[in-house]
């Protein structure tokens, strides 16, 4: 009884807290769905993403695998900025390429081989790593393995913004609350933030992960922009 009451309170409180924080911390960002979400030119998160996803040096080692990954994920390089807005709405997954299923199976086999080659940035470039992230979204088992590999590889090889967004997604699958505020769902035509813990420090975590400020993320989610 107590537990269900607590859960009900949390369901109401979390979006309220998030909204309150968004209003408090970001007066420059419109939360009204009718307004555009203003991205400050030269914002730190944009710069970090632009630097990380810069593939102009062509310094990856496995071009064949990179080409396969991009085709399977339906991506075209160079990626347009920002690559990761930190907004995922349940049931609105990106359109993948026709070879996605086969590539997902291949990634599963690679993930099962400890010590084997794994498509990190130095192997398949930044776009290739983002393709791995997109391909792993719909398979929970693969997702866990990929998230682990991304964390293990570290910030030079894995984009923090993708790692953060992916962790949020998987935490919800595992029955936990998200921690960055990147996951949303549609309820009666409204976009609602999925359950979240410690929204008070969300912007610290988001800054660290090269995600836009929480208020801007909420704006992106609500306006679909």
């Amino acid at each position, binding site marked *: 009884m107590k537990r269900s009451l607590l859960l009900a309170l949390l369901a109401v409180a979390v979006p309220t807290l998030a909204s309150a924080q968004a209003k408090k911390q970001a007066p420059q960002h419109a939360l009204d769905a009718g307004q555009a979400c203003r991205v400050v030119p030269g914002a730190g998160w944009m710069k970090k993403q632009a630097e990380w996803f810069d593939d102009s040096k062509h310094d990856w080692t496995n071009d064949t695998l990179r080409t396969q990954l991009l085709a399977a994920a339906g991506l075209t390089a160079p990626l347009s900025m920002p690559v990761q807005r930190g907004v995922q709405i349940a049931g609105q997954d990106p359109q993948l390429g026709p070879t996605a299923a086969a590539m997902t199976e291949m990634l599963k086999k690679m993930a099962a081989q400890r010590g084997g080659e794994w498509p990190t940035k130095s192997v398949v470039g930044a776009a290739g790593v983002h393709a791995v992230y997109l391909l792993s979204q719909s398979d929970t088992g693969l997702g866990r393995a990929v998230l682990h590999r991304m*964390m293990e590889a570290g*910030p030079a090889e894995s984009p923090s913004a993708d*790692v953060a967004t992916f962790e949020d997604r998987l935490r919800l699958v595992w029955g936990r609350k998200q*921690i960055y505020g990147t996951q949303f769902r549609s309820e009666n035509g409204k976009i609602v933030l999925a359950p979240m813990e410690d929204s008070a*420090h969300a912007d*610290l*975590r988001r800054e*660290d992960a090269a995600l836009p400020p929480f208020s801007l993320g909420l704006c992106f989610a609500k306006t679909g922009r």
Partner: protein
Amino acid sequence: MRKMIQVAGRWSLVSGVILSTPHVAAAQKPAVGSTTKVSFSGETPGREPKSFAPMVGSWLMQRDAGQNVLFIDGRVWKRGQPAGGLADKARELYGARNEEFIESIKAFAYYPIAVYKGLDDFENGEISVRFQMIGGTLDRCAGILFNVKPNGDYLTVRYNGTEDNVVLWTFNNGVRKFVSRAPTLTPLELGTWHTLKISVHGTSLKSWLDDKPMHDYTLSGPVSGKIGVWSKTDSMIEFADFTVTPTAK
């Protein structure tokens, strides 16, 4: 009747609990059985702590919910810098052997540590610390550092919020080795306070997370060295109420 004593700016309650230690003037050996709690109340937000020597990582005092806390800011770790003034701090802690300490610590640049200045040698007793995970994309680690040797070797019992577990690690000659993982997985919410505690009696090591037993392990040898707090890579963690009670074996 309990008796309060004052030693080098610290208040201690002999045979009982505490008293806050704003800062510590010089390392020493507290009376066996007395408990020292570092409250950080006399520290200055925005500055490095006076009661701890940050050796690796960006350790700063900050205010959170009206209290001073020691914050390891893993966002700064990504720049790959050891803590400022490492040589001076190492000299303060270990005198002539500071170069050996520095060489070893540099090998552990992934692992921020801050050494408590108020105790030269912890051999037996209890150490606890309250911590709150704030963030970290790769790691969210809060640990108790102990058995810190002049050559930079040490032991740590830590909680990692990305793995939900408590693990004992050893660091010897620049190499980190896994020693023992507590069998219980304990997911903790970010932004909530928890307590990590260890007890050492001879070679017996026990650990607790929020009073739940985690480790009951036999070390390869007795413990003797400095103590402190530990973290990993990009962890953002707040620490409070670092408490130590040295006891007879």
